[in-house]
């Protein structure tokens, strides 16, 4: 989807002067940010730069953290964590349906599992799933609620490289079908470039770089034209030639 068609709608997430600090140390230093509805945005940054802090603020999970600023986010927000966070005492389908009620909930849960390729595993215990399967179940759990905003904090961080690539395809496909706004936190520059329409770099508590990636999907990891984006992002992250 071309970026220019998206600015018609009201932004899904709006941050104005968002500040967060821990014990006097400022982690987020007045962030202004709009995330348009239906856009897939990736957030990069060094370890400790505050990516998770930002994500948790948007998700409303930062109880007791000192900070100020304005924040507006949609009603239906889903979060995918780095670990699948399935409750080990509930079967896979019951995990997907956690917190969901209504009479067609079960049907929707089964559909969501089918979408992520876990049809037939509804009655498995989470302990019986592989890492990739567990993460797909977590994805199903967040999608079944039809979120307007999907927040994902390094959702593929614990997966092997091959499973990761497969999950990239799946995430992109699911996003195209359901069109939530997505904020994807990642360490992986290539992951950001291949998946996202827009890549943000968090640096010194602010958005240091805001890069729109205007290339058609599906993107290949080998596309030389993406190399230019990679250079800019790595430069913004302070990775120079002699670091490599």
């Amino acid at each position: 989807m071309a970026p220019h068609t998206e600015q018609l709608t009201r932004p899904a997430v709006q941050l104005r002067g968002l500040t967060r600090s821990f014990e006097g140390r400022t982690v987020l230093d007045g962030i202004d940010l709009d995330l348009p509805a239906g856009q897939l945005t990736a957030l990069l940054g060094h370890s400790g730069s505050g990516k998770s802090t930002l994500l948790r603020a948007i998700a409303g999970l930062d109880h007791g953290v000192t900070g100020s600023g304005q924040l507006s986010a949609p009603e239906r927000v889903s979060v995918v964590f780095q670990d699948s966070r399935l409750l080990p005492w509930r079967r896979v389908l019951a995990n997907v349906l956690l917190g969901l009620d209504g009479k067609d909930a079960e049907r929707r849960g089964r559909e969501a599992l089918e979408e992520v390729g876990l049809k037939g595993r509804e009655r498995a215990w989470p302990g019986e799933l592989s890492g990739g399967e567990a993460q797909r179940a977590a994805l199903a759990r967040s999608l079944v609620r039809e979120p307007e905003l999907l927040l994902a904090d390094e959702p593929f961080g614990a997966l092997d490289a091959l499973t990761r690539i497969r999950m990239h395809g799946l995430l992109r496909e699911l996003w195209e079908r359901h069109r939530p706004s997505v904020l994807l936190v990642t360490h992986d520059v290539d992951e950001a470039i291949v998946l996202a329409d827009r890549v943000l770099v968090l640096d010194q508590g602010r958005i240091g770089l805001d890069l729109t990636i205007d290339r058609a999907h599906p993107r290949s990891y080998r596309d030389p034209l993406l190399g230019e984006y990679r250079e800019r992002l790595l430069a913004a992250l302070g990775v120079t030639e002699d670091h490599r």
Partner: protein
Amino acid sequence: MTTHTTTTTHTTAAAPLAPVEEARQVRRRRRLAPGRRLPTTRLIGPAVVLALWVVASAAGLLDPSAIPAPWTVLETGSRLWDAGTLPDDILTSLQRAATGFAIGLTGGILLALASGLTRTGEALIDGTVNLNRAIPTLGLIPLFILWLGIGETFKIAIIAIVVYIPIYLNTHAALSGIDSRFVELAEVQDLSKVQFIRQVVIPGALPGFFVGLRLGVTGSWLGLVVLEQINATSGLGYMMFQAQNYGQTDVILVGLVVYGVFGLLSDSAVRIIERRVLSWRRTLSS
């Protein structure tokens, strides 16, 4: 990351490159978990003890007045059974153990819920229970006899205390030790407080509760034995106490066997329930 090789005929991937050792078998990791459990293994130990007893008695190695032969114990047991005194004593003892256990179980669970789920409850209850725990419960017997008389009430009260403490401690620890990642998940999934407690906190605390439950079951028998030995006016312990006065070791052994059988049965019952309720754990401990 870890590959479990299940076949012994597997060769290393490096074998073609390093033909020094031909077709070397993959070294299997030492298995740290004990192997598959044999059915009825738990009965093997007691069976061996019983066999030794039979053999030693038959060979005349045991002084019959100190340790009577198993068949003597059986005979005495059936004689007492036919006379009607054994069933009466068993019933009395079972009633005490069951009543005390039921009260202790209920109390332990309710207190653990109140203190594990609410801050006020924790402030009021947790310290008090730990104070109670610091006092050896059997040391309370004289006081309880003065308060409640030497009848049934004080015995049941003591058993209930012996039972509620481990159930409370383990359940409370499990309830308040809930993984914060799951709390966060529940917040993200918009669970209500009631849903959170019912679907996340309580199922997560069940393994801890069962640890306490098994300690509580054992505790109820222990309390019973002690009470009936010291303050017996009826029941199995009374029977054994009387037998001691007349030097009837066979009757004492009948009493011990009955205690043992009930202890084993109740523990097995809890294990079976635990396996059913926590079937999801089998994926880890199989």
